[in-house]
């Protein structure tokens, strides 16, 4: 039963990350695309946690979803000037 719940959770997260990646590629608004890549990283970090790799999850959550997203936004703002 536990195994079933884990598999279901992992499938939902996997589908969410695929949807996020699709939005990131095909959305015409760049801000939406940047947030979508951040969501992909966040979902990936939860998946790493489920796969019993908490240290990788920490790195992914802080670098992948926080710092990278921020740097993308700074760069986007710079390009628009």
């Amino acid at each position, binding site marked *: 039963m536990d195994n079933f719940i884990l598999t279901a959770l992992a499938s939902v997260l996997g589908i969410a990350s695929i949807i996020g990646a699709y939005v990131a590629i095909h959305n015409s608004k760049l801000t939406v695309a940047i947030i979508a890549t951040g969501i992909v990283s966040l979902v990936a970090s939860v998946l790493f946690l489920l796969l019993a790799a908490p*240290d990788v999850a*920490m790195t992914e959550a802080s670098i992948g979803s926080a710092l990278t997203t921020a740097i993308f936004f700074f760069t986007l703002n710079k390009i628009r000037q």
Partner: protein
Amino acid sequence: MGKKTLIVLLMVAMAAVLYPLYESYQGSEQLTELGQYYADNGVQDTGAANLVTSVVVTYRGLDTLGEVTILFLAASVISFFLSFKKEDRKESREIRNITEILTTASQVLIPMIYMLGVYIFVNGHLTPGGGFQGGAVIASGTLLMFLSNPDFKLSHKVIHYVESTSGVVFVLIGVLGIFMAGGFLDNRILGLGEVNTLFSAGAIPVIYTFLGLKVGTELSNVLGIFVESQNEQ
């Protein structure tokens, strides 16, 4: 032939190349020989309760040094290309009003985020995480500081000194290992202590503390450079 057909053909070709890998994959119940060695002797050899840390810092310490070098190079390249002359700086950036929620929440959260980052790298030999993770958490605290306070500026001097000192100390501890213990980055230059206590695992907590400071200041510096470059015209 259209572009789309080409893409589909390429994907089919990739699948055909990778399929034998999937077909021949068998999940193994046993560790490899090397992994078995780490699992059996890791705790006695290094005194670290967290086996990942003992592999990352001691057995494969040289690789960690390489990673730190790569991060340092990346930060240097960013500061080289985004640096600008001080007289060109124009404070003409229009800053949107920052909401009350963000300023109040950041006052509560920033100290806690920094504390978490320090906790992660100080306890790297006991709990999951270590220098890189703690440094990244510290840098995300700095990011929140930049977002909640537009006048906030990093002191490049402090950052520069903390970063260089940490890097030098990391290498020096590694070199000390050659003379006082088994080899480069051997953690047995300090007593191993009792497993599962804070002051254990020899030099690992010291190395991770400096590694955390180095990674934290480096990533904060990169963020600071990006924020400063927003003012430039």
